[in-house]
């Protein structure tokens, strides 16, 4: 990372572009990532929102954005971005607006839309080479309605009372398979890595997609103050690999030197209590650890 303006932590923005006063929960890991991203993107943006927790960022007459926003629906935010991008291009071509009136189109969605209902619209946008940035705040469940499991749910057990009988869908791979300009995973707990990736994304054209793992105190059941620590544990245990895709290649941007046991990440969240109580589910814990080890064994 030589050509970045974010060499060290102290290069991070010290002024914030996203307004306070939103109704997101205290300690929201999604809002943490979003405000860090917005600090870099700035106000010459139009956010196209898909139904999710962040629908409620803008509630009449309050908005935290210094730029623009359009609420669409759960299934079609990338199509909304398409309509705006096309319209701005037409207006620029016809010289009806000067270049300084142009906006970057940004889709903002939760994992419910990104991993499920919105996959078709995202795939279509990538196929068409839509010039846009997609930000998914991934809190691994339908957080706005009480944390029902979405296809982005992490990993759990088929035996526990609250278990999701499957493993997290690999959205990064799904997106990368469409060969867009850029795909990256980020997390608010690693702001420098996040800043560099957003900086890179803004310098590229075409479809650029970002997945931000978003620790959710309400849905994951932990004290809000632990939000950042849990995010950091997700990286240190190898549960959330920080990586990027560009020009057909995937590279990891932060490889944990010595991965902590996944248990360290799981045991601090109420949503995984069934793995430890009333008795430790050794088999399941071993299986989860094995999956993570298998993933990293393939990472050079």
């Amino acid at each position: 990372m030589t050509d970045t303006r974010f060499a060290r932590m102290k290069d991070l923005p010290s002024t914030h572009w996203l307004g306070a006063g939103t109704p997101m929960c205290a300690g929201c890991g999604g809002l943490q990532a979003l405000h860090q991203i917005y600090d870099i993107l700035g106000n010459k943006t139009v956010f196209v929102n898909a139904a999710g927790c962040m629908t409620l960022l803008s509630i009449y007459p309050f908005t935290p954005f210094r730029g623009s926003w359009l609420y669409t629906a759960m299934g079609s935010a990338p199509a909304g971005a398409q309509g705006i991008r096309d319209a701005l291009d037409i207006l620029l071509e016809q010289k009806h607006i000067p270049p300084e009136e142009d906006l970057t189109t940004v889709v903002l969605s939760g994992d419910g839309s990104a991993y499920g209902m919105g996959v078709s619209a995202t795939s279509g946008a990538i196929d068409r080479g839509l010039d846009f940035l997609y930000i998914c705040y991934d809190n691994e469940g339908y957080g706005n309605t009480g944390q029902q499991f979405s296809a982005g749910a992490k990993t759990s057990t088929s035996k526990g009372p609250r278990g999701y009988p499957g493993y997290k869908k690999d959205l990064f791979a799904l997106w990368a398979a469409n060969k867009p300009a850029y795909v990256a995973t980020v997390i608010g707990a690693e702001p420098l890595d996040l800043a560099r990736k957003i900086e890179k994304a803004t310098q590229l054209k075409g479809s650029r997609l970002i997945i931000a793992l978003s620790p959710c105190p309400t849905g994951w059941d932990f004290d809000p103050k632990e939000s950042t620590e849990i995010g950091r544990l997700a990286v240190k245990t190898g549960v959330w690999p920080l990586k990027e895709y560009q020009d057909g290649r995937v590279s990891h941007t932060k490889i944990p030197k010595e991965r902590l046991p996944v248990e360290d990440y799981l045991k601090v969240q109420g949503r995984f209590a069934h793995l430890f109580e009333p008795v430790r589910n050794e088999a399941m814990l071993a299986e989860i650890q094995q999956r993570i080890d298998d993933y990293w064994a393939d990472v050079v």
Partner: protein
Amino acid sequence: MFNIRFHGRGGQGIKTAGRLLGTAFFLEGYEVQDAPRYGAERRGAPMSAYVRADRKPINARGIITHPDLVVVDDSLIPVPAAGVLAGIRPDTVLLIASHEDDAVWRSRLNLKSPILTIKPSEGADPASVSAACAGASARLTGVIRKENLIEALEDELGKLGPALLKANLDTVLQGFESMSAHQGLVRQSEAIALIDYQKPEWINLPLEASELASATIQGAQTSVQVRTGLWRTQRPVVHYEDCHRCWWVCSSFCPDSAISVNEEGFPVIDYEHCKGCMICVAQCPSHAIVAIPESEAQRLERQGEQR
């Protein structure tokens, strides 16, 4: 009919308190309605819960505009959005969970309504305060027997296991007993009478310009007018003598853009908006940010103003 309104914060047991009272009424043979009501805000934000109970089938629904009993956490009384005092009548009983005395609240609020307080025990979590309030409310109605309150509690909280159930039971019964001198203070009220009712001032809505008449905000950052600082129960305070000015830590991690950086490179917390998540406290490398209870912080502020 009994019309009872609880005011509290999301995630602090208000919904459970309402259900507990509703179930207790039901076990007494009452017709009951109970419901929580949320806004868009989440954990920590003001919310309310309603309980109606009557010997006849209940036809009313939704918001209780004229309560017979209001139960409230004292930190919410000055919050306009919480609407704690909305629609109260001279005979509406106010039950306030507060460290301050009845007399303080009577002089502060200057209302005709009877005012009672219930003191949270030291270090009590908000959910147990809500439970105590539910017990106290039950006694104030004068129609709920202790055994039915206990059965209601077992119905509602039995799933938590025997230890937690026992702890809650003690709290609820303490609340119940604390109001023994005021048993039956809450009066049932009747529906609004037809005679002399206040006419609704209906209008014919005019057709207005589309940019005004659509849910469009033509402005930036209007959200700063929302004082999410009111959600806070704990306050992060920067001890500047310990601060190493590594603002990029706390200022980046604060999800709410509530930590700005001043010219000298010190972080400054915006208490109008800080929701009290305490991420900054947990992440500060030099432990220069500490958490103190919001009520304590406000008390110190008031003292400072007086000095």
